[in-house]
């Protein structure tokens, strides 16, 4: 596999090797020119020396210098000419010495031409190698720049973009042809992860569908025998099928009430299953709050008067306040909370249904009773499924244990909060908030979004 790491390493290694090699070549050529330059300057100084020498006078240091010069020479003809010159000098022959000096100068002249040509040639080639050695790292830098951009950063950016998309629930993208390197490995891993997530989502969805289907089939299957039971009991209690005595009537009444409770339980379970599987769609509209509150309270009037409890509606916001909500569902929540309150209210007491505007915007609708209150420990539990507060209550209608769980789910679907404030012995206040509301009288819409 041709990895990015191996590519970068081998390119850098090749660049280093090339730069070093070329630098060495340039250095060698430069040294040759140095040597030639030295030879030229030595030769020039010797020329000056021999011009001033007088064969009539003895000058041992000059002769020594000449000998040294001669020994350093590699060219045999030049050596020969220098040694001829030294002989003539030592022979004190002025004429011969001058002739020899002339021969020497001529010979050196030829040498200069060759040397200068050589220097020029090697200087050029040293320059050439030096420029090449310098351009190697530059070329490498360009390559790295290109490679980092197109081989690394762009694919990484693409990958991070796909991951961002993934976060926004777009699971369908796959890299079509991952390269055979580290980036390709990342892309392949991404593909596998995406597939896994997609499979899990599919599995969850099918489980969820299976659950909803089960609940709906189960409720259908339960309703069919309940229809016969409820029907028979109804016919018995209305005495259509014949007279029954009073104790029997009482038994039939108990059976009827419990059958109704079972029916409510099934309906509540279906409701909760729908909300939990998010298959419940809210039909939100702007609804006048005041009329909804009065309508809901009115609907519970019969139940309240049987329990000898008064329902009082307090709405300081007036009739022109509209709330964005699914009115059937909110009515269901309020009905549930008021009937709970009535169930725990002593006869002769009252239940208050009131509205407040909270400081940070949303409306709070609260239901306050004068019942026994709820212990702090139980306050956290009652919104869970099948958790009912125990204690003295009039058993007019038995609850299913799902009402508060449904209410909580419905309020949360409205982006509101639901809760209870209570102290034992001092009654309870159940409240929930609705974030979107406005006053219609002041044309301006003071629509509030809860923080």
């Amino acid at each position, binding site marked *: 596999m041709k990895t990015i790491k191996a590519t970068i390493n081998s390119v850098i290694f090749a660049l280093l090797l090339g730069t070093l090699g070329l630098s060495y070549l340039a250095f060698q050529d430069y040294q040759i020119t140095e040597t030639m330059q030295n030879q030229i300057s030595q030769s020039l100084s010797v020329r000056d020396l021999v011009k001033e020498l007088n064969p009539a006078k003895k000058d041992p240091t000059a002769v020594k210098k000449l000998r040294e010069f001669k020994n350093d020479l590699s060219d045999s003809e030049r050596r020969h000419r220098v040694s001829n010159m030294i002989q003539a000098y030592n022979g004190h022959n002025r004429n011969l010495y001058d002739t020899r000096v002339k021969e020497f100068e001529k010979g050196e002249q030829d040498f200069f031409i060759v040397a200068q040509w050589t220097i020029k040639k090697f200087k050029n080639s040293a320059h050439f190698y030096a420029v090449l050695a310098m351009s190697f790292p530059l070329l490498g830098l360009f390559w790295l720049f290109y490679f980092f951009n197109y081989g690394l950063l762009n694919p990484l950016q693409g990958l991070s973009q796909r991951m961002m998309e993934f976060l926004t629930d777009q699971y369908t993208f796959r890299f079509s042809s991952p390269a055979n390197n580290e980036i390709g490995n990342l892309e392949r891993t991404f593909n596998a992860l995406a597939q896994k997530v997609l499979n899990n989502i599919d599995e969850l969805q099918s489980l969820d569908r299976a659950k909803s289907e089960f609940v709906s089939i189960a409720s259908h299957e339960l309703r069919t025998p309940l229809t016969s039971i409820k029907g028979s009991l109804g*016919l018995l209690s209305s005495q259509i099928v014949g007279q029954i005595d009073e104790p029997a009537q009482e038994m039939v009444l108990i059976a009827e009430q419990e059958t109704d409770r079972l029916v409510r339980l099934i309906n509540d379970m279906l409701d909760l299953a729908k909300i939990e599987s998010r298959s419940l769609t809210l039909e939100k509209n702007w609804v006048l709050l005041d009329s909804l509150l009065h309508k809901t309270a009115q609907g519970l009037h019969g139940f309240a008067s049987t329990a000898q409890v008064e329902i009082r509606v307090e709405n300081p916001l007036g009739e022109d306040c509209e709330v964005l909500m699914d009115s059937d569902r909110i009515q269901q929540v309020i009905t549930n909370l008021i009937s709970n309150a009535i169930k725990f209210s002593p006869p002769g007491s009252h239940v208050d249904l009131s509205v407040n505007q909270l400081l940070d915007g949303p409306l709070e609708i609260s239901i306050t009773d004068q019942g026994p209150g709820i212990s702090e420990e139980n306050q956290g539990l009652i919104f869970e499924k099948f958790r009912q507060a125990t204690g003295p209550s009039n058993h007019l209608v038995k609850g299913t244990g799902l009402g508060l769980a449904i209410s909580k789910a419905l309020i949360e679907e409205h982006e509101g909060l639901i809760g209870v404030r209570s102290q034992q012995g001092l009654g309870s206040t159940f409240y929930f908030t609705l974030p979107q509301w406005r006053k219609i009288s002041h044309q301006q819409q003071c629509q509030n979004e809860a923080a």
Partner: protein
Amino acid sequence: MKILLAEDDLNIVKIAQLVLEKVGGHEVTVATDGSLALDLALKNQFDLLILDGMMPGLPGVEVCQRYQSQGSAPQASVIFLSAKSSPKDIEEFLSLGIGYIQKPFEPNRLCQLIDDFIAKKAA
């Protein structure tokens, strides 16, 4: 009224028939599966068909659709009686019939419910 009651659960048939005859004073014919119900509805002149949502043979919705496309005028009104309660099902029932009664129903109120549906349709 001449009523065809199509329902596969015999206990429910007994109760509904009893109420319809004793309380409402209607003339009730019973069919315990969908295809028989369709057959009876096409061959006889009923005022009202009460159809169960789920029946062997043909489901109530299909009985209704076939009856409405094949039957001769004047056609009987259709009321569905079902344990199904999803909004989708209810919507389908109400698009085909004049009313929908959820199981389990209140036997004492069955005749009143039927009268209300018919009155609403007439209005």
